[in-house]
């Protein structure tokens, strides 16, 4: 069914393309929101992505790859949006793992505090955040994640590792700070 819609979209059938877009819209919007952390900008990014896809649907050679291609276009639309907001992004991003810090803090300090973790994801560089979103949220294997992000698989692995390390580091520091505060309180 999807193949047929893609074929029709490639021949200029906007209704067919809209059907395809409708099926993917929830996930596209979610991806954009998770990467950009801003629903308005996410909406614009999805809009840009869909328009780009409609204009360039000729470039799609394998109809089965339609959804993955749409995800890739959406991620790149997010990158463009982020570049436009460079100043904001510049203050958003910023934890770089410190090799001297403990590699694995006590997980009991943060397990269960997902808001804190979500905040930490939001502070990652957008390229690392995109890897997390495509790999964990869209549930693509790393090889396809790399294809969607248009990067080598090794780079995808590296960004994933850096992202997770940064999360561990951030969460560890927060846990230490909380423990210190608790200790001072007891004293």
């Amino acid at each position, binding site marked *: 069914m999807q193949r047929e819609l893609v074929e029709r979209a490639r021949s200029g059938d906007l209704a067919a393309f809209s059907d395809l877009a409708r099926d993917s819209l929830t996930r596209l*919007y979610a991806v954009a929101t998770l990467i950009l952390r801003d629903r308005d900008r996410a909406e614009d990014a999805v809009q840009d992505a869909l328009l780009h896809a409609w204009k360039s*649907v000729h470039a799609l050679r394998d109809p089965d*790859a339609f959804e993955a*291609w749409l995800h890739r276009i959406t991620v790149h639309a997010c990158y463009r949006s982020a570049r436009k907001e460079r100043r904001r992004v510049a203050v958003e991003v910023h934890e770089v793992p410190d090799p001297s810090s403990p590699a694995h803090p006590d997980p009991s300090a943060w397990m269960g505090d997902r808001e804190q973790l979500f905040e930490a994801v939001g502070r990652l560089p957008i390229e690392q955040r995109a890897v997390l979103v495509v790999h964990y949220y869209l549930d693509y294997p790393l090889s396809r994640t790399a294809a969607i992000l248009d990067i080598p698989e090794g780079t995808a692995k590296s960004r994933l590792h850096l992202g*997770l390390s940064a999360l561990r580091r951030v969460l560890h520091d927060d846990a230490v700070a909380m423990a210190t505060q608790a200790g001072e309180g007891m004293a």
Partner: protein
Amino acid sequence: MNDADVDRTLEHEVRAILGEHAPSAPPSHLLHRFEDSARRARRLPRWLALSKEPTMRIESQLAVGSPTARGVAVLTATLLLALALAAIGVAGQRLLAADQVIVVAQDGSGDHTAIADAVEAAVDGDTIFVRPGTYAESVVIDKDITLAGEGDVADIVVSAPNDGPKARVRKDGGSEAGYAFHLIDSNADVSGLTFSGRPSQVLVTGGSPTIHDLVMEGVDQGDTLDVGGSISIGGGSTATVRDNRIAGGASIMTFDASRPIIERNDLRETSGIYGYFGDGAVVRGNRIWRPAGSGIRSMDPADIEISANEIVDPSSWGIELAFGPGAEGTTVTVSDNTISGAEIAALSTAGLDGLEVTGNTFRGNGTAVAWNADHGLIADNIIEDGAAGIVISQGAPEVRRNSIAGQTGRGLVVGAATSPTIADNRSCGNNENFFLDPAASPRLDGGNYFCPDGLPT
């Protein structure tokens, strides 16, 4: 908890929080907004979409884009960029090189000792200064440069060698002749030099150069009209020739229906200004003293302005307009000139269609106006002390407000088979103030005053 457990837990948590924070549904208007935009958008052609879209492989299979199309596009873009950079480079080089000053000095104190070498080294926009000396050269100038003498013009002399190169002055005939400067399709500005000796003409072929403040002495191409003058303008040029002083020898000549502006030149004992003009040529404000033959002579039908010239003692005609076939629709304007002492006539015309003769002063000429044109105007002229005033031999001109006096012959003559309109003229003090051929059919509009015949005693 070991490392692997921590990682698994962390990954699990990340997966969970992303799922929890992902919005459950997009805004309802998002799809409509897209559809509105899509209807207005132009889809890319397949080749462009294939070349623009980055390739994507899934399980090693090419799913999106075309490396070949993209390669071709990148190659094409690279080539275009290289071409653009090359063009910018060339333009930049020329810009950087432009507007330089080059000095020619025979004593070696400048950049070159020969004018031709300086011209060779120059590019459009450059200025060449020529210092005093005598330069025996024949120089071709095909660039838009400024070439000027630096110092007293009398001391900066260009004299073409007798055995120098020759060029054809007329496009379609004539003999070749020597030259000192030959400007070819150039918009050069040439000034402040003296040209001396028979073959040293300044020859212009095409272009729109400005030739001014030159001194030409004894530049003479002989008796053959087709080999040029002191300054010869051909090839349809729109040259401006002004403020030059030409003494002896040949004149300023025009060929090939060129449309020069020739103004404020001082010509002494030359063969005047003459040739084959094109529409729009202007001969204005020149002083032509004792020309051999005519002061100004035009031999091809064309709309020409001849105004405010002073012509003294021409050996035959002051202004001679002798058109061949094809004059229909042309109009020559002869206005505000002063012509005196013309042996035969101040203004002689033949074969013209339209002619306007206004505001001129003719004094002491053989005949003042010898009219041979189909129609036009003879008005507001002052005619004194010649042999004959206005002689109408053709057509139906309007003759208005002229003042004719002191002619030893007739003042106003209306010849056979003409039908002029005559009004508000005054003809007095001539031997015969008004002569009307019985075969003429003039219209006398009134206001004329013809005194009794006879010169005042």
